[in-house]
């Protein structure tokens, strides 16, 4: 049954954060201000690569109303940040490596004054040659960004003998796929308020996807105990991975502590573009072959990923790509080589899909090309080579078994759009001859969680608070995905509470346990698993307390709306408020565990997977070369739907981002400089591009005895659309796309009537 409001019935709920969002009442962290606060600004490098000869701040410091001008000399702790490997300077000491690199920061009484002060900081640079191409950065004679060279990370994988495999192949396809530097384009740019507290602590109000990670990194930079820092990190006006790493936090924190006053920062869009993360541009070369029957014998892959100047999670993204270029298919032999390369381009980093988007665009392109060579229907070809129940994961690792791949495959074969495709073959065209329609499909197997070898903690806490509220505290973040709504819905459906009984506490390191990051499609899964663990002890504790208070046997008591109820009649016996009054101390249940991982030592290998199939119908205008997306079908096998509105929103929203990835989005750089500064030239989809048909079919069935519950859906919607569009474009005009976003010039055709006009003259 397609997922929508009607089919969801009562499970379609108004989000608890909705009323404040539709009225504008919700204070985002960049909306906060305090009396007496200062405005912070960061001075960034005008060069993509240069030596810093000298920095003079005297003139800026002398301006009345300028309270602090900071450089690397003013960082009390580690002058570096980076979640996995801290190699990005807070302030560059002697060298800048991209045009987002920070050199100094100021705090002043007004924003205009802060901006002016930046112009009065004197920095002498000596420009260095710019390394802007990852391939040439690998050559031995390239300028090196670091002493150790330009290689950030290599990740290889091999299984079987690919040479022998290719020797036995009847059909071989070789292709190089390129993907763009996609920008997250969260509508709320980075920013926040940084407040030195009277007791000496520092409160950071700034969006992030893992408050405790920011706290750890800030403690390292500020050289102060983590306990002296409070990070308040939700609500967030969009993130998509882009606010996972530190951005303005080091500057806000240092300036606030230097001035002893609250400091606000809020990036302009251009500053967000130049300093912020992007999706890694990747070049993926694939050679894939089959025998005469279409059985995949060999698959050889080389990935070159442009990391930009510092690490953040580039190594982890590359590992993810290596896993996902193999994906849901059985190959006789596989050989993957990959490298993530330092360049003087913009920072690349974590972004929804995490390397899967690039990998699967390439992999699915190979499947379509091979099927064409074989003369086999491309969807059938995928089924012929699909991993079977019991098979290991892409890296040969044990995975939690589901039948997801087959389920989404069948759902697509059976969907309205695919039947329409079959019927369309026989229909005569009624449109103008330059409008061509086509259908395409893609299959996606996408890992969730951080994977083997990376700390991936989870947990949460339930409390009957003194005021009678059931308080659910989780260290997760609300960046729009509907995390609060999902948590509320699970508490209602699993425990029987009423929404009014609940108080949900997230995004505040002072108030929540560390539940790990809100990344990698993991938060909903982990909340579900945490509640499963918390249910028995918490329900028992509440019933025990009620039994004591009421003098009624525990077996006669159940949790319900508003309070403890009679198990038989359902009548309310004692409200949670009254129950709280009878308890001498709050009733608490807490759990800590870790995201399940595969028992292998391959770093990053995943254990839980979500599967999706995507079918699209597109229209190609060969006069303009433009592609229009007309209709979409998504089948997603991710276990039970926790929150129908959130689930639908994740697939629709992810797909919307993928449309930009496929057709319009690329933060183009030239010699290390961004050629786009704002949303007038960086084109994300508007409503006009996304007003076509859309159907989501969730497949909720999991194998009997599955203990893992709902799988993540936060990323998978953003993965399969691009390869499906590429296939549909080929169906429409017979041209293969190997580079995203699709260049309209590739699809332009000289119209037949122009020929006639020329002939006539």
């Amino acid at each position, binding site marked *: 049954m397609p997922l929508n409001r009607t089919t969801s019935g009562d499970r379609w709920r108004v989000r608890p954060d909705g009323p404040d969002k539709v009225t504008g009442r*919700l204070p985002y962290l960049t909306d906060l201000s305090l009396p007496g606060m200062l405005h912070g600004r960061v001075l960034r490098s005008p060069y993509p690569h240069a030596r810093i000869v000298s920095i003079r701040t005297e003139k800026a410091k002398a301006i009345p109303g300028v309270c602090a001008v900071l450089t690397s000399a003013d960082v009390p702790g580690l002058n570096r940040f980076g979640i996995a490997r801290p190699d990005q300077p807070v302030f560059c000491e002697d060298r800048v490596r991209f045009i987002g690199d920070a050199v100094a920061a100021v705090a002043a009484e007004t924003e205009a004054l802060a901006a002016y002060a930046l112009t009065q900081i004197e920095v002498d640079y000596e420009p260095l040659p710019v390394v802007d191409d990852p391939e040439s950065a690998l050559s031995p004679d390239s300028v090196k960004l670091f002493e150790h060279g330009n290689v950030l990370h290599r990740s290889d994988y091999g299984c079987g003998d690919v040479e022998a495999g290719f020797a036995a192949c009847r059909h071989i396809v070789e292709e190089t796929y390129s993907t763009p530097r996609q920008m997250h384009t969260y509508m709320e740019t980075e920013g926040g308020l940084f407040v030195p507290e009277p007791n000496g602590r520092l409160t950071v109000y700034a969006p992030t996807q893992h408050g405790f990670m920011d706290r750890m990194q800030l403690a390292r930079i500020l050289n102060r105990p983590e306990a002296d820092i409070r990070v308040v990190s939700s609500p967030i006006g969009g993130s998509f991975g882009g606010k996972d790493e530190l951005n303005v936090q080091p500057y806000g924190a240092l300036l606030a502590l230097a001035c002893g006053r609250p400091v606000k920062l809020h990036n302009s869009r251009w500053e967000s573009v130049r300093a912020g993360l992007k999706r890694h541009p990747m070049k993926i070369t694939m050679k894939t072959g089959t025998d005469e029957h279409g059985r995949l014998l060999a698959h050889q892959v080389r990935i070159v990923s442009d990391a930009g100047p510092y690490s953040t999670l580039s190594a982890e993204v590359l590992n993810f790509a290596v896993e996902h270029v193999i994906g849901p298919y059985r190959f006789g032999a596989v050989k993957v080589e990959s490298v993530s390369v330092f360049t003087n381009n913009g920072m690349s980093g974590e972004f929804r899909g995490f390397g899967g988007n690039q990998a699967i665009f390439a992999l699915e392109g190979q499947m379509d090309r091979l099927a064409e060579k074989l003369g086999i229907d491309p969807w059938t070809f995928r089924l012929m080579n699909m991993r079977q129940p019991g098979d290991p994961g892409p890296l040969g690792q044990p995975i939690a078994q589901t039948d997801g791949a087959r389920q989404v495959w069948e759902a697509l074969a059976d969907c309205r759009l695919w039947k329409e495709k079959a019927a369309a073959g026989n229909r005569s065209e009624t449109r103008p001859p330059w409008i061509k329609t086509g259908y395409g499909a893609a299959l996606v197997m996408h890992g969730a969680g951080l994977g083997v070898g990376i700390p991936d903690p989870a947990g949460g806490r339930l409390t009957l608070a003194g005021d009678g509220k059931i308080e659910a505290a989780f260290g997760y973040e609300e960046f729009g995905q509907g995390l609060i709504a999902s948590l509320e819905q699970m508490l209602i459906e699993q425990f029987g509470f009423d929404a009014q009984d609940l108080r949900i506490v997230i995004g505040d390191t002072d108030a929540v346990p560390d539940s790990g990051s809100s990344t990698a499609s993991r938060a909903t899964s982990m909340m579900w698993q945490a509640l499963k663990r918390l249910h028995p002890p918490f329900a028992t504790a509440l019933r025990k307390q009620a039994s004591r208070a009421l003098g009624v046997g525990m077996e006669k008591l159940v949790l319900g709306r508003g309070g403890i109820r009679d198990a038989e009649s359902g009548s309310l016996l004692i409200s949670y408020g009254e129950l709280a009054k009878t308890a001498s101390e709050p009733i608490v249940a807490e759990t800590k565990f870790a995201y399940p991982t595969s028992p292998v030592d391959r770093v990053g290998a995943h254990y839980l997977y979500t599967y999706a199939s995507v079918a699209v119908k597109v229209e190609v205008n060969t006069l303009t070369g433009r592609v229009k997306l007309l209709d979409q079908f998504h089948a997603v096998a991710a276990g039970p739907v926790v929150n129908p509105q959130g689930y*639908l929103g994740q697939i629709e929203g992810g797909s919307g981002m993928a449309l930009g990835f496929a057709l319009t989005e690329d933060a183009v750089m030239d010699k290390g400089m961004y050629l786009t500064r704002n949303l*007038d030239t960086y084109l994300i989809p508007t409503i006009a591009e996304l007003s076509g048909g859309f159907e989501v079919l969730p497949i909720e069935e999991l194998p009997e005895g599955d203990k893992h519950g709902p799988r993540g859906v936060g990323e998978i919607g953003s993965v399969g659309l691009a390869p499906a569009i590429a296939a549909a474009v080929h169906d429409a005009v017979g041209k293969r796309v190997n580079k995203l976003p699709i260049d309209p010039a590739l699809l332009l055709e000289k119209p037949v009537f122009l020929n006639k006009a020329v002939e006539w003259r």
Partner: protein
Amino acid sequence: MIDPKLASAAETFTLQCVINKRPVSVDVPPAKRLLCILREDLHLTGTKRSCDIGRCGACMVLVDGKPVNSCLTMAYQCQGKNITTIEGLAADGALNRVQKCFLEEGGYQCGYCTPGMIVTVTALLNKNPEPSMAEIEEALSGNLCRCTGYGGIIRSVLKAAEQGGRRHAGRHESA
């Protein structure tokens, strides 16, 4: 030693206008952007800052009933005008029809584009109670949303139009 440009910008005039049905009088530089006046001087932070160049619509407000990007509107242009922000679309704590439909249909996720989106849709439906899909696309083409893929937004707008359309048709018949 203040930059002369800054010094001249510091000259203020008294902006007198009506914002959310209340008369407002505020001393600001004449070229100060309405977006900043709302957010900084009046603490009406429901109007959001995102692109600053009139491309994204997060800062949309109504000026004399017409949707405008407040980041492109200067103080002097607002003199004597009637301005409505997201906070003023409905009376104290209530929701207008568009807000209700966004809430019920899930026409938002992170919510950052939502105030501007709702302001634009409200203006559209006031002017054109039964818009075609093409008219909806045109009216909302200046409001970007990165979270929803516009699915929930389209459902919200269609529902609000449907509800308003019925009422409008009713009024038409009785007249």
